[in-house]
């Protein structure tokens, strides 16, 4: 997968597809067995330990559970400032000023600086985690299900905040989400994952409106759209996502695909170009 400067890309898929693992590999919380991560064209494998430690600030991760991501015994100001002190950016006074600026940027009142996480609402905690991720001026923000744990009426506030931050800083955003409607609103491109593979990739509106991969079609059909007038659905696939252990030969989706054919079970289709700016991993794409 490729993310260009300032681009907004979404990674969608169900549990066990590997989307969170992929995000963690991107920020080096886990390592890949094969393949590579290149930042600004430079392979991570080519960097020395010292370079890796200090130079991995371009990509920052907002993990799934904001509440678990904050140390309950550190004040908000200390949490947000922690990356700055670890990387020794500026003097103490400069760091404190920077923390206050970050609070402003994420729409939090400066008076919250000395509070503890448990004193804040879920939406406020999420803003703190975002502020902390911005502290080192990243080029890419990876947001893993940033709003799933929040009340519906608060979600839009956080999504709008991410949008504003992106525009202001020309930041690239990788949004990991299972909510296709949110993805439709925020992301320019979408990558669909199934059992550790990207099976479709392309512009968001095109992929959602006219899915090429049968799994994408199934996801779109199954998505509970908050619009009762679109209730009739195309057929949802049978069964559930199989375990990634001991997968049979051939396409990983063959067992549940409504359009499966002989060749699908023989070899694994690779992600390849399919029309303008689209890629699909399927021998018999739907469009």
């Amino acid at each position, binding site marked *: 997968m490729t993310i260009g400067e300032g681009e907004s890309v979404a990674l969608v898929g*169900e*549990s066990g597809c590997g989307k969170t693992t992929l995000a963690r590999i991107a920020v080096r919380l886990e390592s890949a067995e094969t393949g590579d991560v290149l930042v600004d064209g430079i392979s991570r494998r080519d960097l020395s330990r010292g370079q890796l430690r200090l130079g991995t600030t371009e990509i920052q991760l907002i993990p799934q559970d904001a509440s678990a991501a904050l140390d309950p015994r550190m004040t908000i100001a200390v949490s947000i400032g922690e990356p700055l002190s670890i990387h020794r950016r500026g003097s103490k006074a400069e760091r404190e000023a920077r923390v206050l600026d970050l609070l402003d940027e994420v729409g939090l009142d400066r008076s919250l600086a000395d509070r503890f996480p448990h004193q804040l*609402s*879920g*939406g406020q905690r999420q803003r703190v985690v975002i502020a902390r991720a911005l502290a080192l001026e990243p080029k890419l923000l990876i947001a893993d299900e940033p709003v799933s744990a929040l*009340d*519906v*009426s*608060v*979600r*839009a*506030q956080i*999504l*709008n905040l991410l*949008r504003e931050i992106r525009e202001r800083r020309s930041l690239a955003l990788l949004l990991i989400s*299972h909510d*296709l*409607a*949110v993805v*439709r*609103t925020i992301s320019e491109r979408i990558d669909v994952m199934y059992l550790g593979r990207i099976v479709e990739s392309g512009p968001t*509106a095109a992929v*959602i409106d006219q899915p090429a991969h049968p799994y994408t079609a*199934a*996801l*779109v*059909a*199954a*998505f*509970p*759209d*908050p*619009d*009762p*007038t*679109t*209730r009739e*659905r195309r057929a*949802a*696939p049978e069964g*559930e*996502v199989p375990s990634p252990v001991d997968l049979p030969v051939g396409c990983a989706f063959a067992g549940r695909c409504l359009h499966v054919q002989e060749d699908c079970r023989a070899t694994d289709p690779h992600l390849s170009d399919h029309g303008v700016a689209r890629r699909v991993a399927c021998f018999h794409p739907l469009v």
Partner: protein
Amino acid sequence: MAADTVLAIKGLALDARIRRTTAQPVADAHIEVRAGEIVGLVGESGSGKTLTALSALRLLPDNIEIAAGRIEVGGQDVRALDEAGLAALRGSVVGMVFQDPIGSLNPSMTIGRQVAEVVRIHQQTDRAAADARAIEALGLVGFPQARERFDAYPHQLSGGLRQRVMIAMAIANEPRLVIADEPTTALDVTVQAQILELLQSLVAELGIGVLLITHDLGVIANAADRVTVMYGGRTVEQCSTLEAFGDMRHPYTEALVASAPTLEGSEELVLRGIPGTPPDPMRPEPGCPFAPRCARALPDCVTAPPVFTAIGEGRALACINPVPAAVRV
């Protein structure tokens, strides 16, 4: 009240003793479910929706008691029942499906025995008959090869199959009402679609009424026939699903629907959220709980809470300055 009403809650208020103070997590709740329909109960944190639903079976924590209101299940006055009467209701007249099946199923008992257990508690049958009914119930909920997998343990099953086991337990004794509390929140979206379809077909085949509690508007839009919206411990609107999304009257319903993006996308690229946060039941405000966030709030809104009133066939509302009716061209 119609003869086929399976659940009726009117004017419910709950008092909660927390440390040395008293709070009212539910101040004025109204719910009605009839046979053969799915009513979606939607609300955010602090809305009181789960406690209201649990009140139907008086499954409340020790520090919470019913302060006011009427609760009728299958025509019986639930507040007048003693423990024996309640035990007879739970698991037979009313089945419950909880959010997290792995937390609700006994990990050391086979799934077949767990479903059979529900049957044996409420019906005078022997073990063989209970097992047979368990297999039948598992079949009804689409559990594949129920007879062969009778001796499976919960941990051997996927999330979707575990939820089917919970639903089998809920319907094994032919209930009139099933209360499902966020039954699909923990499931993948393709499995969620299957489970919602299952609930709809059970309603059609068995004629049960379902109270489906959720915060997910997508689930409501796709599975519910009617909607009850709660906010800050009060029922604010009751109407059909189509009305809730296209012709709502309560400003909170309107704001909630506007904040949930649809798959079709829209011309506006900026999502409309609701400024502020849901109210804290420990710090109640006088007047309507939504007033501080309401675009249509009037001075009277903060002095006294609005009265829940019928406004038409199958519609009711608690608001003194409702959203005008949608104009039909």
